[in-house]
């Protein structure tokens, strides 16, 4: 029988984190890195992985210092009540914007890629209804769904990669010289914005086996690095950095080129299908995270009553957020990446530093 009913293991949480990175990676990793690092873009994930590894280490110190506590509880304990409320409120606003952003982007992408002339509301509303239905089952069910989705998505990307190998042109990926060092470092900035694990910390009190965070975290980073590299390699290798950097759905376009034995094609339908699943898991998990923040911030007895109203609110925000897909793309590059860096790196580092200064945690905890 399952011990710790109602909780998920750190391994499951990190699996969710891995899925959370897939949607943005497939969407913009190739184009954003190709824009700056050009043919050396496929090296960017390696540089990014170094930053992510350091951040993982820092977060591990925090998690080990506060076992079975959520990120909100940690913030309240480390900072004062006023600052705690402010920081948590910032996270609330930011993650809500992020969900609305992904919700809108997912609907726009469906309309752009396979459903032209279909009303965008259909996709937004159906997704929100689905989330409202599933989120009530709690994190255990979400985590299990995440694990199965992770397997499905990994298999699909792996198979697509195998099919793409014959069309990869080495000329598109080389030459690499010392001149590429700076662009690669610069491009790694956008990749670092994928460190969504901090948003999962808002339900860290529901994690078990927290001592294994660093161990499984490293494996997750390896997966993220692999997926990023593979996607960028396949995209740029197939079409070249010049085309990819100008394409809004770069990997999709690269997959469209795939043919098996020159006869079977249309693999983008499979990619779109898995993309919807990863989008769904991402919006679901972030919504769960926000509901946990709301619960802590307003000292609620349960967040169940807030699910529907929050989802309705999300629907409006997703519409208010942007007028069209071009605005969304610019927002992604100019605001979301920087915002994520602040919320995922700078703010947590400040919190950890304060905790160390105030001796709330200690580096040797783990």
């Amino acid at each position, binding site marked *: *029988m399952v011990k710790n009913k109602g909780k998920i293991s750190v391994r499951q949480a990190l699996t969710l984190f891995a899925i959370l990175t897939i949607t943005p990676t497939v969407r913009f990793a190739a184009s954003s890195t190709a824009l700056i690092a050009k043919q050396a873009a496929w090296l960017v994930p390696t540089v990014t992985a170094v930053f992510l590894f350091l951040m993982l280490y820092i977060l591990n110190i925090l998690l080990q210092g506060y076992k079975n506590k959520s990120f909100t509880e940690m913030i309240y304990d480390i900072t004062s009540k006023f600052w705690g409320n402010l920081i948590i409120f910032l996270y609330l606003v930011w993650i809500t914007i992020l969900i609305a952003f992904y919700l809108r982007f997912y609907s726009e992408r469906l309309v752009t890629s396979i459903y032209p002339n279909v009303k965008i509301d259909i996709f937004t509303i159906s997704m929100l209804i689905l989330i409202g239905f599933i989120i009530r089952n709690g994190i255990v069910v979400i985590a299990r769904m995440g694990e199965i989705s992770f397997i499905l998505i990994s298999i699909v990307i792996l198979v697509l990669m195998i099919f793409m190998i014959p069309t990869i042109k080495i000329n598109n990926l080389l030459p690499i010289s010392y001149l590429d060092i700076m662009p690669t470092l610069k491009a790694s900035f956008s990749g670092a914005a994928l460190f969504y694990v901090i948003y999962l910390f808002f339900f860290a009190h529901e994690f078990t086996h927290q001592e294994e965070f660093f161990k499984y975290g490293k494996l997750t980073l390896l997966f993220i690095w692999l997926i990023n590299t593979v996607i960028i390699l396949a995209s740029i290798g197939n079409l070249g950095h010049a085309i990819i950097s100008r394409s809004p759905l770069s990997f999709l376009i690269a997959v469209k080129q795939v043919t098996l034995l020159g*006869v079977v094609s249309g693999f983008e*339908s499979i990619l779109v299908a898995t993309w919807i699943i990863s989008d769904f898991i991402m919006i679901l998990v972030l919504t769960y995270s926000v509901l946990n923040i709301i619960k802590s911030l307003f000292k609620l007895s349960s967040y169940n009553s807030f699910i529907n109203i929050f989802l309705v609110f999300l629907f409006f925000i997703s519409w208010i957020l942007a007028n069209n897909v071009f605005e969304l793309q610019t927002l992604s590059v100019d605001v979301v990446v920087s915002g994520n860096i602040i919320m995922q790196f700078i703010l947590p580092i400040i919190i950890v530093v304060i905790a160390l200064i105030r001796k709330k945690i200690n580096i040797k905890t783990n």
Partner: protein
Amino acid sequence: MITLSKVGDEMKKIRTDIINLNKKVDLPMEVESFKGLFANSHDCVFTEVMINKELTVHLVFVDGLANCTNVMDFILKPLTTLEKFTNIKDEKKLIDVIKGGSLYYISVKETNDVNLAVELLLMGTAVLILKEAKIAFLFETRGFESRSIQVPTEETSLKGSKDAFVETLRTNTAMLRRKMRTPDLVIEELIVGKVSKTKVSVSYIDGIANDQLVKSLRERLKKIETDQVLFTTVIEEEIIDSQYTPFPQVEYTEKPDKFCSALLEGRIGIIIDGIPFTMIIPTSIVNFFQTTDDYSHNYIVVSIIRGIRYLLAAVALIVPAFYVAITSFHLEMIPEGLALSVISTEKGVPFPIFIECILLSIAFQTLIEAGARIWSSIGGMVSLVGALIVGEAAITANFISPGVVVVVAAAAIANYTIPNKDFAFAIWIWEIILILLSSVIGLYGMVIGIILLIHHWAQMEVMGEPYLAPFAATDGRNSKDAIIRSLFVFKKKESLDEQSKINE
């Protein structure tokens, strides 16, 4: 004294009381009580045994349940012929002699409780009633006709053992004992069913099975409020957690080797008296993709075959819906040649593609159902007439397009490769749901269906174990035997180590 003429409402009430396990009847231990209770039952034999001129006793047994030869040779004959009995003048002395072992029999029980006597009488026990002393001796004389051990009919095995469970509980438990000669094999028994009073056995290996799980199952079985246990679902529906699902949550087997192997994995087996199929719990999705033959063949071959089974299950589930989605909404996604071919085959067919798919899918299930119900002598005709003649005629008459036939037939054949038929049927139901969803909004609808299916599985638990284990469980144990069949020597180590860890 109750006489036969008085049998009426009073006896009906007593009978109703006696079938209720919790309510005991208060009748004196005398033959009239039994005659009253079994007044209209002609299979109940009442024999007056005259030991000598001064001493008479009554013997009651149910013809067919008790072994008449044993009754005659070991009870009637000694009582009426042995000198030590014929010389007895009173019942008190007779009791002493029987207690002293003169009426030698393996299992003799003394009682003055009519309830107990009736209960055992219906299990084949002979009841010797001593009227004045108001007690009875119960002789274990059961010996009814039963089917001998035969080759399994539903689970064929190439290299495994060829014995199968039968309807008799004791024969089945004996088969288990023969395969696992360890005192750690525990076979508990309890009676379920107010009227049928069926023996239900719970088997597990002490030290390997999770104690909490055993306790939980025992409690669930005890709580069952039913009149009969003539079918497995009576037990199954009471012990499972998720009621609203077409997916099976209990694994059935008629093979003792599979049953024992499950016990060694720490699972619990249930054997019901009168049913040759045994139940194994807890189960997860992987169990429905495994067969006993998996452990009789080369592990590399088996691992590949298992992988193919999962792939084919996915084909059975998704391909028709995918076909509907692509042909109805996203023709631009398939190569031009294929798209033109699909359009040309659809020409003249009056139904939309999803209706064709659903109709044909139901037609396939009709064939299966007809094949299962029809007399075996003409069974072959069903597939011949159904699949070949009607199918061919339907295409020629432009009722159904050949493309749909190919897709639905491929899905149906893929579905047959799922070893567990209950699971295969549930997959078929979801196949129809996915077709309906993709007929509404294409690929997106299909993906929504897949998400709903994953959610459905994710929320299911069997006795507290996740249905998706080991693919999705908190600790992911036993995952090495999920798709890749590991070498036996490793599997054994894992199983025992892991189970002992769980018990910690």
